[in-house]
Every structure is written in structure tokens, then in C-alpha cells.
């Protein structure tokens, strides 16, 4: 079973409902974990993933958003990639069907259409075994770059980040209530880099 963590905040109820309905309809066995009104997505993903550890039967944890629709078979494709030791980076399309990105290098550098299994940098919508979450948790409480930190952490655990074209999502591009998040991207970038440095210090250096 796949635990789908969906952070949401007040004012985005319509997007949230549409997202939940899409996950219910995507053909995979899912448990929806809703995390409301956290100040950052890093904190929301963390709280949701921690809750997923207590749900019986959960094999995978998928950290999502409240403005995403998985395409049919998308979660199965991601799970299959994980079984091969891959941390899958999704192919994302816009509402009008145009390409948003086919994997990403992190830091906002989005890849154009590219082949399946292309080595890349991060995944905007993390998908991992629940044991992996136990190994890498907690996620820094940041907004921007939380996904980049998670990708770095799973690489530390030996996974490769690669494009999974079958793991296709539609991004609804909901901007309601996100002004503050957008403005703080610079501070989050600094916090992300510091979080990497903090965890990467050897005991002697620390």
C-alpha cells in the first residue's frame, strides 16, 4: 500500500478535494494522509511521513501536494522504480497537457523531455520505501529545497535519482495562499545548504 502525504492550507480546499479524488481514482491502493496548516512543506511532509510509519501495511511513502493529479498507473511505475533501487523523478505535465518537466536537476533546473532512467538530481514529489524514510528523517522545516534535501539524503543512502517517465503527474499550479512561500525561497536555500553541511560533517570536523 502507498501512503500519500498531502499537505494543504486554508483557502485551497477545492484544489485539495480534486487532488484526493484523483489519487483515489488512479488505480493504486492508497492511504491518504492529510496534513493541514503547517508553515512549510518540509514540516508537513515530515509530520505526514512520520504518521505513515504507524499505518499498517504501508510499503511506500509518497510525498505529494494539494494541486497534483497522478495519471493512471503513475504510482505503480514509481513503486516499480523503487524496487530497482531508484529514487524516481516524475514526468510532470501542465493542466493543458504541455510539459512542465521530465525530471529535474534540483535548484529549480527542470529537464525537458528525456529518456526513461535518465540520471538527474532530485524529485519534486518524493516516493520511497517507508524504511528509507526511517533512515533519512527528519526533513528540514523549509519550503523551497525540501525536495532537494530529500534527494540528497537518499543518495547518501545509496539510491540513484533517475527519471521515471511512467510516474506522470499533472500539476494544477495552484498559487492560492503561496505568496509568503515564494518570497522566502532565498532563506530556504540557505537553510537547505546548511542542513546538508550539518549532516555531512564527520565526527572529527563536528
Amino acid at each position, binding site marked *: 500500500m502507498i501512503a500519500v502525504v498531502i499537505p494543504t492550507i486554508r483557502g485551497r480546499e477545492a484544489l485539495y478535494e480534486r487532488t484526493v479524488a484523483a489519487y483515489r481514482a488512479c488505480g493504486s491502493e492508497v*492511504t491518504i494522509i*492529510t496534513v*493541514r496548516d503547517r508553515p512549510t512543506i518540509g514540516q508537513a511532509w515530515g509530520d505526514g511521513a512520520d*504518521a*505513515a510509519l504507524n499505518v499498517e501495511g504501508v510499503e511506500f511513502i509518497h510525498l505529494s501536494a494539494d494541486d497534483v493529479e497522478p495519471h493512471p498507473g503513475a504510482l505503480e511505475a514509481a513503486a516499480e522504480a523503487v524496487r530497482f533501487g531508484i529514487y524516481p523523478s516524475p514526468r510532470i505535465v501542465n493542466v493543458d497537457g504541455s510539459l512542465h518537466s521530465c525530471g529535474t536537476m534540483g535548484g529549480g533546473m527542470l529537464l525537458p523531455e528525456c529518456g526513461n532512467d535518465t540520471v538527474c538530481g532530485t524529485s519534486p514529489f518524493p516516493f520511497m520505501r517507508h524504511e528509507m524514510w526511517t533512515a533519512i528523517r527528519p526533513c528540514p522545516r523549509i519550503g523551497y529545497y525540501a525536495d532537494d534535501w530529500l534527494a540528497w539524503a537518499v543518495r547518501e543512502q545509496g539510491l540513484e535519482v533517475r527519471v521515471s517517465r511512467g510516474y506522470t503527474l499533472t500539476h494544477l499550479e495552484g498559487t492560492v495562499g503561496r505568496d509568503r512561500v515564494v518570497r522566502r525561497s532565498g532563506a530556504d536555500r540557505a537553510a537547505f545548504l546548511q542542513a546538508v553541511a550539518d549532516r555531512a560533517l564527520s565526527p572529527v570536523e563536528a
Partner: protein
Amino acid sequence: MRLMMHSNMPWASTGYGVQVATFAPRWRQMLGHDVALTSIYGLQGGMLTWNGIPCYPAGFEGLSQDVLPQHADHFKADLILTLFDAWVLNPDMIQARGHRWVPWFPIDSEPIPAAVLRQVEKAWQPVVFSRFGERMARDAGLDVRYVPHGIDTTVYRPVADRAAERAQRTFPEDRFVVGIVAANKGFPSRKSWPEMLEAFARLHRRHPEAMLYLHTFVGTEMTGVNIAEYVDHLGIPAEAVRVCEQYQNTIGFPPEWMAGMFSSLDVLMNVAMGEGFGVPPVEAQACGTPVVLGDWTAMSELCLDGWLVPKDEADRWWTPQAAYQFKPRVGAIEAALEEAFDDWSAGRMTDERRRDTAAKVAARYDADMVTREFWGPFFDECAERIHAEAAGDLPPVEVAA
């Protein structure tokens, strides 16, 4: 967030009122916050809506602190900001119902007066509006933030036809016009009215082409200096003095008129004993006009084009608030005015220089920039702190198979 600003109403033509009018709409429109205003001065008897912003009336206590917490409850305010002298405010009244108090307050003396420190150290987050104030507060161990005052540089900018503006005010083209735009209030005069007037009188004796423009109440109605009598006593001839229309000063001059006036001056003089900020010198420079200020308190950082009277040319004065301000010596102000006169008579006050000065001011104090670069991050920090403080109250994670 939901922000409640407690100060003078935005239509009041006071320094604080103008800042409220400048920033409250920008918090709403540029940053997306919900804003309400509560009245220390400017509204009694009922609520009004100003530019879509609800305005709550004054209470019965002199600074309306008796009703402020109830107003904040009614509005469901996340923060109560005050823009007022902090030493007269009562933290226990403001925070009586657990609201977060954010005083945006002046420090105009050195060190931070104990009476100010005692109040603001009880605040949730104090904010000062000068780098000088920031330094004084931190020297006293206070954790403050800095957000400067701001001006609308689409209004305060060099006018297109300066000659026409001067003519409107009967400033002849061949006269060197020194302006003073300052409240005339209290003894000793915080704005140093007697010293500035005497310095001008000396300048005028040497250079009869010097003129004086006074934008203030020239009588004693605000318990200030009897300027009309003093100017006469100093021997400054009436033909060399222009005074703003006194009734219009009561009801307020439009910002566009003020910008025209500032643009018409050759130099603005504001050698106060202490300044928490000093909006007129900034407005004048935004219009391209250089300034004569004192090199102490917030004035030092406001002089982007002009002359600073050295601090060692002022005598320390221990104020009733128990801190020092600085009483400028007449000769030092006179020397600064003489340098300004030299620039004018040598033709160095060019249009290009005025444009450069205006650009420097816009880069530092433009209200849109201050909103974007200072208020935005500050309110973000507040929001995160509020979230963190309420961490125990976050909604539980919902699991639905």
C-alpha cells in the same frame, strides 16, 4: 496575517499619520495582509473604512489603550503594531488580552532612554526606524528589527518646472531660499528653532539675497517658540521671510504641493537636537534639495546630499527622559549654511545634482522598496514565529485509508 496598526489616522497630517497612510495600503496590496487601523488621534465616535481598511475609533484613555485589546479581539489581529513614542505607551494595557505588541518606535537620544527601554523590552518584537536607533537598542541588549520610514517617490521627486513652483511661492530666481519644515513645539525646542533662526540671521547679514521659508505654526499655539517675534528681534527683514499659510497648515497641505515646495528650496535646514527619523529631510532630498542636518542621532544617516553640523559643535543636553540630545551651536549651523550658499552662488546646485540626490533617496527610502525589502521579510519572520509558538496547536495529521 491580520495586522492592526495603532497610531494616528491616515488622514491626519502628522508625521505618524503620513507613515500610516503610506504603508497600511501597501501591506494590504503588495503583501496580501489584512489590515485594520485604530486611532490614537484622528477618529472618535464610530468606525470608518478608508481605502478598504477598517478604522476603529479612539477610546477614553488618552492613547486609546483602554479599547485597543478589544479592537484587536474584534479584528482577530495577529499583531498589534504601534507607531508612536514608546515611553508613553503601556505594554500591560496593550497586551492585556494576550496580543502580540510590535512597537515601531523612535529613538532620538543617546543612549536609548530608560523610560523607552522599560516599555519596549516587554514587547513581542520591537522595531526601530533608524540604524542609529538599532545601534542604541542593541547596545542596551534589546533584540530589535529595523524598518525605515518611507516616502512615495512618485510624488516626492524633482518637479518638471522648478521655476514655476518658485514663482507660485514668490521665491525670486535670484534668491537663495533656505527652508525649515518642522513642528514648533516645546521648550527647549527639539527642532532647535532659536539656533537655526539665528544662524540664518547671520547668513542674511552677509548675504542679503538669502531668504527664509518657514513651514510651521509661527505662534505659540503649540507651546513653541514665538517665531514671529524672534525673527523680528533678530533683525531679519520681513521681505526675506515667507511663511506657509497658517490655516492651510491646520487642515494639511496635499503631498503634491509639498513636493513642489521642497523642490523650490535651495536647501532645507533641520539641525534638530535629536531625530528618531526625520521625514522632511528625506522628502526634500527626494525632490533634489540638499539639507543641513546635525551629525547625531538618526540625522547622520539621512544626509545623502548636504552638510552635517559636527557633533563636537553641539552641547550635550540631558533630557527629562534621561538621555542626551545635542544643542547645536549657532556658529556651526551658520558655517554649514555658508557652504550651502557657496554651492548655490557658484552654480553647483545643478539639475543633474538634484536628480542624483533624488535617485539616492529613492534607493533607500522609497515606500514600495521598504515594503518589499523590509516589511515583507519582517512579517514573514513574524508569521513563522507565530506558527512555531503555536506548534502544539497544529491540526492533527489525518489518515484515511
